[in-house]
Each structure stands twice: as structure tokens, then as C-alpha cells.
């Protein structure tokens, strides 16, 4: 059952990129950021009120963690630019590729307070295969 939910999640991510990208095209990149974030904020506030979820703890968070929202803005903007110019499938492939590269770098360097992971040389083979896949998507 969870397997199907994971596939459903993937379908939804593509649909999200379609809807948000099309919105950005209609309203302009920056204005669409406010619309998307503002609507999400309203929905979350409604859920929190309905389910009576306590939120006082968020005031105790280290301040730098609030910047995650800014990262979200960068992410939506880049997704929208990419979707408008490259299409949905290639955007999804490239974003996944970026995720893999960055997690390897972060693991290897032990950044963000995470434990350093030794780099397994065999993983280079998988990375080469994935790079080949991305190349095929870009060229054809």
C-alpha cells in the first residue's frame, strides 16, 4: 500500500510542477511565489486550527532554521524556470540528479552537522549510469 502511495507522491510532484510552473507563466515568477506560499500557509494554518496542533515550540527553534523558507523560494523559482523551458520530465530527471550529487557531497564532507560517510568507490558506477541516463534525456 505504501508503495502505491510513493508512486502517487511522484505523480503529484509532477502535477505540482505543472500547476506552479503554469501559474508562474501567467502571473510572473515573483508574484507566483507569494501566491503559492501564501495559499500553502493558509491551508497549514487551517489544518493546525482544526486539529488543534500546538505550535508554541516553533519559537524555540534556532533562528537559522527559519531560512528553510528562503530555500523553498529558491527551489520553487528554479523548478518553475526549468519547467517552462525544459518541460516536466527533464526537469524531474535533472532535479533528482542534483539531489544525488548534493547528497554525495554532503555525506562525503559531513556538512550541516551530519556524520561523514566514507565514499564507496563502487558508487561511481551507479553515478556514471545515472549521468548517462540524464545525457540521453537531454540529447534526445
Amino acid at each position, binding site marked *: 500500500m505504501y*508503495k502505491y502511495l*510513493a*508512486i*502517487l*507522491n*511522484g*505523480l503529484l*510532484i*509532477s502535477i505540482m510542477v505543472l*500547476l*506552479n510552473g503554469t501559474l508562474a507563466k501567467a*502571473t*510572473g515568477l*515573483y*508574484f507566483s*511565489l*507569494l*501566491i503559492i*506560499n501564501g495559499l*500553502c*500557509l493558509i*491551508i*497549514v494554518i487551517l489544518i*493546525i486550527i482544526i486539529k488543534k*496542533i500546538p505550535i508554541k*515550540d516553533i519559537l524555540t527553534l534556532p533562528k537559522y*532554521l527559519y531560512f*528553510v*523558507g*528562503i*530555500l*523553498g*523560494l529558491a*527551489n520553487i523559482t528554479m*523548478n518553475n*524556470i526549468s519547467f517552462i523551458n525544459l*518541460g*516536466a*520530465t527533464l526537469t524531474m*530527471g*535533472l*532535479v*533528482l540528479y*542534483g*539531489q544525488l550529487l*548534493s*547528497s554525495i557531497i554532503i555525506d562525503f564532507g559531513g556538512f*550541516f552537522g*551530519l556524520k561523514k*560517510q566514507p565514499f564507496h568507490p563502487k*558508487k561511481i558506477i*551507479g*553515478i556514471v*549510469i545515472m*549521468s548517462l*541516463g*540524464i545525457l540521453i*534525456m*537531454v540529447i*534526445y
Partner: protein
Amino acid sequence: MYIPIAIFSGFTVIISIIMLGSINKKVGLMPTTLVNFGAGTIGSILILLLVKDFNIEILKNVPIYLYFGSVVVIAITMLNGTIINNIPAVYTTMLVFIGQLVAGMLIDYFRLNQFSPGDLVGGIVVLLGLLYNSKVNTPDLVETNIE
């Protein structure tokens, strides 16, 4: 030019996942989502004040369904919270990517009226690479944290 932008978008996804993960541990899923979009909303207001590039009138001409992107964003967030503890993350990454590929190709087909065999073949090759690396047994971020 657009290719590095999309790849860099993947970088922001991973750093977000790490930060949201550490907020989640402290306060739970919905307050985390509140922080994320609260800060995002404040940030986007600041950006708009800076660039002064918006026109409220435009909203009248935007088809209603485009606003549902935000509903989808919240649905994805809640689904993530359900899935992440119930199947190994490496399978989650692959299954999510399969869903992304299928929907992505359908979207491109209907939007641009073209089917790209390269996207299908390339996507499958990417999946094979993911599968291969999942067999190499080092726990890394992708295997423990992604979506």
C-alpha cells in the same frame, strides 16, 4: 543554461530536507510546514517589495485550477510524512521517480503534443543507476532521507 538551474534545484531540495528534518524532530510535521511556508511567505513579500513587479489585476485572468498547486504541495508534504517511516527510503526514491516520470511524460505529451523516447529511455537508465547504487551498501543521505 537551464540545465544547471534544474540540477541546482536538486541541491536546494536536499538542504531543505536536512533543515526540515531537524525542525520536524523538534516540533513535529505540521508546525514544521508552518515554519516553512510562513518564512516563505514573508520572504516572497520582501522580494515583491524589492522588485515591485506584480499586478493584482492579473489574478482575475488566472484559471482557478492553477491555485490548486498549493493544495498539491500540502498533500505531498503529508504523504511524505506517512511514507518515510514505512518503506526503505531508497525504494521511496525510486518509486517516487517512477511516478514523476510517468506523470512528467504525460504532461509533456499533452502540453507540447510530443512524446520524447529519450525521456523514457533516459529515465529508465537513471532508475537502473539508482538500483545499482542501492545495492552498494553504504547508508547515505539519499537512502535515508529523501522524500
